[in-house]
């Protein structure tokens, strides 16, 4: 029997597959389709300290092999999440990753202070959302600007801290190394790629924000390259994501060095897609007599 257990910064995943932030809410809807405890983990919809209504206009647009989204961090706020959903997620046998974003450094700090008072397994710090004009990705593009955020949050955050990197960063490896220097427990990448669509009938951008975030299989080879680069640049564990749609994709990310993977857009193809990926990895391990994933992790 293949052993899929994976350690990530001292947190034990029963298998290396989690659902990515923004594609699974807080887990309740998907739990109506299957027992989400079969997953390794779940990453919450991106929270901000205060409730936020998100972007106006079109929020989703298909591309060949992908989608662009411009949800804009619509979320009920940290307090509502703690009151309504956190206990439920914690009651499950699953790694609880809470994703926190912000429009300003003050947002991040007050969000962290609230989350410091509750139980969770990993705090994923989103410095990479492309859909928020004032902040989000701006914090995650330049290494030295991001350093201020990571340093500040590391000081006040009592949880294990995973920093989610933007593929739009000027230098992805220096950003990752900075996170390690500042005491992050892990790194996750990639968030979506800044992208655009134009409505030629209206002669205008499709999205009110002009640019939006591209995800799905279209970005997988680039995300895989970035995960590979980052895994070679840091010693802290890496959670890889970006267009993972099949178990073969997941194995590629693990061979590139990722400790765990997150599945996002593929859930929209089939809500149970992450389960197929887990089953596929297990079958692959059995067929190739791989006892544990460390045998192939970072092998490339």
């Amino acid at each position, binding site marked *: 029997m293949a052993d899929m257990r994976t350690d990530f910064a001292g947190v034990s995943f029963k298998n290396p597959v989690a659902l990515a932030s*923004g*594609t*699974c*809410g807080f887990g309740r*809807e*998907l739990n*109506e*389709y299957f027992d989400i405890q079969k997953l390794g983990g779940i990453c919450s*919809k991106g929270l901000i300290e205060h409730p936020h*209504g*998100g972007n*106006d206009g*079109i*929020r*989703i*647009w*298909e591309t*060949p*092999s*992908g*989608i662009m*989204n411009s*949800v804009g961090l*619509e979320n009920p706020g940290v307090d509502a999440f703690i009151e309504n959903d956190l206990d439920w997620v914690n009651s499950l046998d699953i790694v609880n990753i809470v994703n926190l974003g912000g429009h300003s450094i003050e947002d991040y700090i007050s969000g962290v202070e609230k989350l410091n008072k509750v139980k969770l397994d990993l705090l994923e710090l989103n410095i990479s959302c492309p859909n928020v004009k004032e902040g989000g990705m701006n914090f995650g593009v330049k290494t030295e600007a991001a350093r201020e955020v990571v340093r500040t949050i590391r000081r006040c955050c009592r949880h294990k801290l995973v920093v989610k990197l933007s593929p739009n960063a000027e230098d992805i490896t220096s950003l990752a190394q900075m996170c390690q220097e500042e005491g992050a427990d892990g790194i996750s990448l990639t968030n979506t790629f800044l992208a655009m669509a134009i409505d030629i009938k209206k002669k205008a951008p499709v999205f009110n924000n002009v640019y939006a975030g591209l995800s*799905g*299989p279209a970005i997988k080879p680039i995300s895989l390259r970035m995960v590979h680069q980052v895994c070679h640049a840091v010693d802290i564990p890496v959670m890889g994501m970006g267009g993972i*749609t099949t178990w073969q994709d997941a194995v590629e990310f693990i061979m590139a060095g990722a400790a765990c993977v997150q599945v996002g*857009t593929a*859930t*929209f*193809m089939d*809500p149970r897609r992450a389960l197929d990926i887990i089953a596929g990895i297990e079958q692959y391990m059995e067929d190739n007599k791989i006892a544990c994933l460390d045998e192939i992790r970072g092998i490339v």
Partner: protein
Amino acid sequence: MATVLENRQLSEDFFLLKARAENNVRPGQFYMLRAWDTYPVLSRPISVFDADGETVTFLYKVVGQGTELFSRLEAGQQITLDGPHGNGFPEDIKGKIALVGGGVGIAPLYMTARAYKEKGSRVDLYLGFSGEPLLEKEYGAVADRLEVNVGGFITDYIDPAEYDYIVTCGPEIMMRVLYKKCVDTGTAAPLYVSMENRMACGIGACLVCTCRTAGGNRKVCKDGPVFLGEEVFGVG
């Protein structure tokens, strides 16, 4: 997976697809349909035209890559039906009811009209088309009165003051005009509107189909697609 029983072309770009699937669909609900593996990435939310316990029928218009793939399906082929989703139209209303549909928005009104009529309501159907009118005989059979307009504004034909309830599905501009007409005529009839925002997950997890309402953000796929007109259009 469900087996396609029939996929009948009604006009240049409208099709009626019937599939075998056990269900307990309520009028106004929808399914996420998919007839491919990976691409296009997203499944397509399609309203139920009609259903019994064993089969579901969808009226759809070919507008893009996904619906174009549906149009090629033949009897005996497989399609993924995920659903039914959404709240549907209110079931407990009774009286004189107007149903107003535009374009492919007429789809959910067939089953809805029949259900209201079976419960003893008087049902008037107002259907607007930009091209060839569709299924007039079928719609006529589930209504006390059928008003069809081609190329104009179907909202011109209805007097909201005549009704106890009004139900609508169609282009947002049509529903907005109807809402304004309801307000202007001071009718006491509640207006129920069915929204069709773009969706990704279809189950309430991704917040892509959010609709601003008087009561705050709502998920069209899960809290809707049916809302009170004043909740959606009364907010400015």
